[in-house]
C-alpha cells in the first residue's frame, strides 16, 4: 500500500509557457516533482535534469541474446543435430543464417524492451492509474509539486510561483499513485 501524497499542480496552455516556468523554478531552486504533457517537449529533459534512458541498454542485451539464440540454434540444428546438404551448400552455411539471425535480433530487442518497460513502470492489464487532471493527456501542460507534510507557507511559495508563471488552473489533490 502506497502512502498518500498531496500534489499541488498547475496547468499551462502552451508548452513554451511551461518551459519558461521550469526555467524560473530552476532559478529559484523549487523542486519539481514531475511534469505532464500530452506530447514530448523539446528541451525539457535537460532542464529537469533527467538522465538518458537506460532502456536501450536492455535493448542491446536482448538484441545480442536474440542474435546468439538464432545463430547458435540454427548452427546446432544444421551442423550437429541433423546435418543435411541443401542445394550443394556447406553444412554450416553462415550467409544463409544471417537473415534469420537478424530477424531474431530485432524481435528479441523489440519485445524485450517493451516487456522491460512495462515491468519497470509497473504496467499490467490490471494497473489503474490515477490522473491528476483529465486534460493533461489532451491539451494542457502540467507542473506538479509534492507538498505532502510541507509547511503551509512552502505550499504557498509553489502556488504563487504557478500563478506568476502563467498557470491557468491550480489545484491541490490527494493522490496515492504518483
Amino acid at each position, binding site marked *: 500500500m502506497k502512502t498518500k501524497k498531496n500534489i499541488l499542480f498547475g496547468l499551462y496552455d502552451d508548452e513554451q509557457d511551461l518551459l519558461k516556468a521550469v526555467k524560473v523554478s530552476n532559478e529559484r531552486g523549487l523542486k519539481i516533482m514531475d511534469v505532464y504533457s500530452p506530447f514530448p517537449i523539446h528541451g525539457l529533459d535537460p532542464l529537469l535534469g533527467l538522465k538518458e534512458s537506460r532502456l536501450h541498454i536492455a535493448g542491446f542485451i536482448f538484441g545480442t541474446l536474440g542474435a546468439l539464440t538464432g545463430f547458435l540454434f540454427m548452427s546446432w540444428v544444421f551442423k550437429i543435430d541433423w546435418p543435411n546438404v541443401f542445394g*550443394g551448400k556447406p553444412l554450416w552455411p553462415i550467409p544463409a543464417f544471417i537473415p534469420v539471425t537478424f530477424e531474431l535480433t530485432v524481435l528479441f530487442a523489440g519485445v524485450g524492451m517493451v516487456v522491460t518497460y512495462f515491468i519497470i513502470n509497473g504496467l499490467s492489464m490490471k494497473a489503474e492509474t490515477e490522473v491528476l487532471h483529465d486534460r493533461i493527456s489532451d491539451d494542457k501542460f502540467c507542473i506538479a509539486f509534492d507538498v505532502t507534510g510541507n509547511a503551509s507557507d512552502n505550499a504557498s511559495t509553489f502556488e504563487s510561483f504557478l500563478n506568476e508563471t502563467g498557470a491557468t488552473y491550480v489545484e491541490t489533490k490527494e493522490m496515492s499513485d504518483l
Partner: protein
Amino acid sequence: MNQFTFEGKTKTMLLGGIVLGVVSMLLSYFMGGEIANTRFWSNFLHNSLFFLGIAFMAMFAMSVWITAWSGWFVMGKRVFEAISMFTGVGLLLMLIIAIGNYAGFHHLYHWNDLEAVAHDKVLQGKSPFLNRNSYMIFTVLFGGMWWWMTMKIRKDSVDEDKNGRFGDFKHMFRQRTWAAAFLAISGYTSAIVIWLWLMSVDAHWYSTLYAWYVGASWWVTMIAFSILIIIYLKSKGGLPNLNEDVIHDLGKFLFGFSIFWTYLWFSQYMLIWYGNVGEETSYFWTRAHGYKFLFRLILVLNFPLPFLVLMKNSNKRKMGTLIFTSIVVIIGHWLDFFLMVKPGVRQTAEHLLHASGEHEAAGHEVVEHTIPFLSGFSLPGFLEIGTFIGFLSLFLYVVFASLAKADLEPSHDPFIEEAKHHHV
C-alpha cells in the same frame, strides 16, 4: 567568423598533397612492368570515381533535404554546396577516361577491346550499351546535367545571401524546383553511369543491385567528409550557430547508412552465393579468394566498427569519436572502391597480355584458380596511397576554395532560424 579564408598553411599543405599525388601517379605510370600502365589508369579511375561520387552525393543529399522541407541542415548548407562543387572537376577527370577509350590510353574496359568483343558472345550482346560512344555520350550528357543543376542551386543559394529578404521565398522555391528535378533525373542517370564507369570493369558480370550499393558507399563517405569539414570549420571558429544537434544528426546518418551499405552488400552477396550461377559468382569468387584480406577488412571497417562505436546516443555527439569513425569509414569505402575496380581491371589487363601472346588456343574459357599477389592490385601499395592523398588534396582544395567564395552562414535562407534552434 562568417567568411572562411583559404590560405596559408592549409593551402600549402593541400598543394603539397597534390604534388605528392602527381609524383605517385607519374611513378606508377613510368614504373615499367607489363601491367604498370593499367596500374596508373586503374588508380586514376578509382580515385576519380570515388571523389566524383562524393560530390554528386552532396548535391543529391541537398536535393533530398530541400525537397523534404528540412531545416536542420541549412546551417551547414555551404559545406554540402562546397563538396558538390567538386562534381565539375570529377567529371573532367572522367572525361579523360572517356577520351582514353577512343585514343587507347588505357585498357580498363574489356568491352573496349574490339578484338576481344569480336570473339565474345556475351560482350557482343552487351555492345549496344557497352561501347565507347555511349560511354562518352552518357558521361557528357548526364554528368553535364548534374553539373548544370548543381551550379544552378549553388548560384541561387549564394545570390540569396545578397538579394534575399526576410519573408521572401522566391529563392527557396526556385531551389526546390531544381532540387526536385535533380532528384527525378539523378536516380536514373546515376545508375546508368555507374554501370558504365564502374560495373563494366567486370564486363561479363552484372548485378541489378550494384548502382544502389555504389551509391550507398558514396553517401556514407560524403556524410563522413561533411562531418570532418564541419568539425574543422568549427575548430577554426566558423559556423558558431551550427549546434551540436546538427552534428548529432550527421552522426546518425553515418550510423544508419553504414548499416544500409552493409544491407546492400549482403543482399548482393547472399543472392549470388545462394543462386550459385557461375557467371554471377565469378565476381565474388575472385574477390573472396584472390583478395582475402581486403574482402574481410572492408566488411569490418564499414560495418561492425561504425555500428558498435556509434550505437550509443552520446557517442554521436563526441567530436573525437566522430572524427575517428569518419576517418575509418572513409578509408573503408575507399578500399571498397579499390576492390570494385582492381580485380576486374586486372583480369582485363592479363587477358590482353595473354591474347597478344603466342598461344591463342582455346584459352578463352580458362578459369585461373590462383590469383597471385600483385602490388597495387592485391593490396594498395605506396603509390596507391600517394595517389589517394593527391586526389584527396585536390578534392579538399576545391571544397575549401568554394567555401571561401561565399558566407559560411546562409543568412537569408528561410530555414535559418529553425536550423539555429535545431534540437533532437
